[in-house]
């Protein structure tokens, strides 16, 4: 009698434990979903506020705001050119050069232009430029704004009648959008040229005129428009998310690093989702 009772008791315990674990799992998932909903709603509201401030105060305080935009372009764009050049050269040599070489060995060098446009112009160029700006400038944004919030500088701006969104967020949104757009163009050009150089060094019999003709043939007007739109949206997204994480909730100094990690994670997810959306657009048009 004793043995079966113990088995039943053990089975009952195991079932209770399984039920407890699944309850905890559902509770945790529910909490995560609620937090996600709050974050999306908060960032959406922050985006709308920034848009309205940017439009309504477009021509206000030019003496203060324009130098801030220039500084942001300098920081997120011009200062990153050497890094982008290095990355573009590596991308061109490793990915493009080898792809051209592979296409040649398959006798499909006529498709080189189409592959380049799809891989570099539409996908890798914009994403790499965005992630580079996120790593170098987006993280700095969260630290700067989080520290400014924690030290009460945002209240000081309000006390002086200076709109913190106008002074701190709008220049970052414009600066990052312009920078990612410009860096992407730069990255694409350097990558395509270095890719050809690598292929040339590997004795692929593809003349520069043929290579560039293929590229020009594969490029559609939609590519120019969508790359411009995509990179500008990447910049705006990174600026909005990092500024939101730094400013939206009052932080203590020790919470700034957590906010930075959180912002990076959200930006990466946001950039990938936005990119996926553009893939759908490419497929439709």
């Amino acid at each position, binding site marked *: 009698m004793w043995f079966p009772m113990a088995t039943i008791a053990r089975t009952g315990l195991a079932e209770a434990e399984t039920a407890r674990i699944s309850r905890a799992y559902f509770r945790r998932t529910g909490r995560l979903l609620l937090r996600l909903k709050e974050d999306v709603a908060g960032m959406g509201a922050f985006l709308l506020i920034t848009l309205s401030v940017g439009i309504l105060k477009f021509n206000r305080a030019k003496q203060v705001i324009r130098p801030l935009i220039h500084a942001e372009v300098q920081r997120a764009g011009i200062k990153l050119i050497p890094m982008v050049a290095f990355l573009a050269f590596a991308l061109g040599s490793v990915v493009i050069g080898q792809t051209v070489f592979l296409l040649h060995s398959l006798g499909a060098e006529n498709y080189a232009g189409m592959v380049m446009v799809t891989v570099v112009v539409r996908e890798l160029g914009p994403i790499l430029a965005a992630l580079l700006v996120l790593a170098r400038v987006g993280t700095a944004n969260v630290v700067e704004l989080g520290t*400014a919030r924690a030290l009460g*500088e945002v209240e*000081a*701006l309000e*006390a002086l*009648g200076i709109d913190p969104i106008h002074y701190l967020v709008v220049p970052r949104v414009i600066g990052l959008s312009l920078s990612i757009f410009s860096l992407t163009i730069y990255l694409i050009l350097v990558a395509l040229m270095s890719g050809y150089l690598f292929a040339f060094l590997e004795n692929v019999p593809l003349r520069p005129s043929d290579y560039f003709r293929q590229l020009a043939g594969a490029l559609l007007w939609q590519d120019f428009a969508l790359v411009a739109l995509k990179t500008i949206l990447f910049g705006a997204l990174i600026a909005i998310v990092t500024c939101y994480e730094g400013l939206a909730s009052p932080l203590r100094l020790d919470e700034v690093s957590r906010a930075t990690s959180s912002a990076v994670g959200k930006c990466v997810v946001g950039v990938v989702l936005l990119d996926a959306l553009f893939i759908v657009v490419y497929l439709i048009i």
Partner: protein
Amino acid sequence: MDQKSQNGEPLLNVVDASVTPPRARRVIASEVNWQVMVGEFWLVGGRHGSGKTSFLATMAGLQRPAAGSIRHFGMELSELSEPELLRERERVGYVFKSGGRMFSGLTVAENVELPLRYHREGENEKLDGRVREVLEATELSREADSTAQSLGWDRQQRVGLARALAMNPELLFLDEPLSGLEARDRNWWKKFLNTLWEGCPLTGGRRTTMIITTNDFGTWAGGGHRCGLLEDGRWQPRDEKQEWPDLA
């Protein structure tokens, strides 16, 4: 100056306001009724932890009252549109305590000129002149090109005063400006604030109305100032003839 204020309307008029600190339920002061007239110099006294900073921030319009109404220059703050609020903020100065919350990365001169450049465009020579004038008056000319953060916090507090004065405010709020200062600096501040109160070239000869928080009324004794006490969740403004309370 605002026409209503000239005609005897209070610069600050508080009716049945309730003050709470941000993100807290504790009530610092309930049913606050208070009027500050043009040219008055008020001391807001209270012990450590009594909520003077939140009280001052609420009176200055930087925090919302939990209930009641706060009017500056005859205008209800909660009903102001964005442009009206901007115009109102140009007439109010605020000096934060403990270092004045300087903008990191900006020099002393840039900190002072920021509100001027933001609110008044296209008058570069005039703005530069005003910045020079304010820095000279606050004896900060030598530190004009230093970053504010490289200064000691007593000097930063003075930069905070210079920044608040740049716009030539009619109503000036100061949060414990003498706290933690050496005797020499305390004397400088008292003398300078009295000069502003009486009217000087920096204010265009106009008397600046001032509201200052303190935890030591004795420091200000004999100045002809008015005072009120923040204690036990109540704001108690004193008549001019009443004796000042002892906070010791």
